[in-house]
């Protein structure tokens, strides 16, 4: 699987929450095989920045550009090439992980069929594939959400605290998956306050204060 050339840019991004400035005049550029490491303490605005980059939150000034086009203007193109995993897993409690994945890709990608099987196996979800998601542990739900990211053939992965609730093996797996994605030419944006050992690709640090 090869990933075509693309670039993501943030130009002059600013956002306030009340009278507190989360970030001001923030800029960065990301191209193939690079990953943006968003770090900073609790409440420094990591999640908000990721939501801005995903196109969920509007910045007060500045814009995010995908292939030199504003994401607010080319929403469908951008959302086709991007997958976002936030704090909420986006899983229906009454459906099992497999049903959840299948439903998600009925809206997104017709050809995801076999990749779903592979992702379930890779994330170690075979044993709970037919259990309703509300009976899964937080870590298992996280794995199901990661399976969704893995199934997508998106160029850009935006992962907010991907390590949350995961055990040591799970963390290593995330690092491995991101590394592989970068080696294939993908891009990633990760927010985490942990150290991360991503072997493939180039790290672009971005620290929020």
């Amino acid at each position: 699987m090869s990933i075509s050339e693309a670039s993501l840019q943030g130009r002059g991004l600013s956002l306030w929450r009340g009278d507190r400035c989360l970030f001001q005049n923030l800029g960065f550029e990301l191209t193939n095989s690079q990953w943006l490491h968003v770090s900073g303490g609790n409440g420094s605005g990591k999640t908000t920045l990721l939501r801005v980059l995903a196109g969920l939150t509007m910045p007060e000034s500045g814009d995010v550009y995908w292939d030199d086009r504003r994401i607010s203007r080319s929403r469908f193109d951008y959302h086709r090439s991007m997958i976002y995993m936030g704090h909420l897993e986006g899983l229906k409690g009454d459906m099992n992980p497999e049903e959840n994945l299948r439903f998600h890709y009925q809206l997104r990608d017709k050809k995801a069929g076999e990749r779903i099987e592979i992702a379930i196996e890779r994330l170690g979800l075979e044993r709970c594939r037919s259990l309703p998601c509300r009976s899964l542990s937080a870590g298992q739900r996280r794995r199901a959400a990661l399976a969704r990211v893995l199934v997508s053939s998106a160029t850009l992965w935006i992962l907010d605290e991907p390590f949350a609730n995961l055990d040591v093996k799970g963390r290593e797996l995330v690092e491995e998956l991101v590394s592989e994605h970068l080696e294939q030419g993908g891009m990633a944006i990760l927010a985490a306050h942990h150290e991360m050992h991503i072997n493939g690709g180039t790290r672009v640090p971005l620290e929020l204060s």
Partner: protein
Amino acid sequence: MQTPGMLDAGWALLVRDIKLGYRRIGELANPLVFFLVVATLFPLATSPERELLMEIGPGIVWVAALLSSVLALDTLYRSDMDDGTMEQMALSPQPLAWLLLVKTVAHWLVSGLPLVILAPLVAQAFFLPAEAGPTMVASLALGTPTLSLIGSIGAALTAGLRRGGALVAMLVLPLSMPILIFGARATDLAMDGLDVTGPLNLLAAIMFLALSLGPIAAAAAIRVSLD
């Protein structure tokens, strides 16, 4: 990667929502039971005289239908907002307005349609003449989808709030008044054996207006709620 067409995506969402609706059968039955209870409260509070009940019957059925549809609104977007599915839908390469329209249709199929079917039963309790029955069902079949569509805007606006229940009612009820007026009027006219095409046409017109503009407003409101 091949993005599915709007119809395929819409069908998948419709099937999912109806399936989820029936997995939570209790939540589904609440508005219906509410409808029956409210309608039966009126004869108890006023008087069981046949003339009076015939007089107020159509109005009561409509008020009960309106209140129960507002009560059902809370389940429309709440769970998708809480578990992050709405976020994912807003980020999918499908038009959000279309997805919300499908969700509203699914919601009407599991909460509005049973109400339309139950209405003749309630009408019996109010001694409504049999010839007014079809008109009442027709007016509800045209009016309740509109209530759901208008309600979906209110539900979308309050979806980001922890407790939106009372606020939704305040937003939606004033906008629903025309539907209430024409709906009750149609049944009234039918009871007197008069022509009912006027109010029914107006109900249909309002439904198409809500069908064309409602989802766009709801999508804008959901994006604000997700912000």
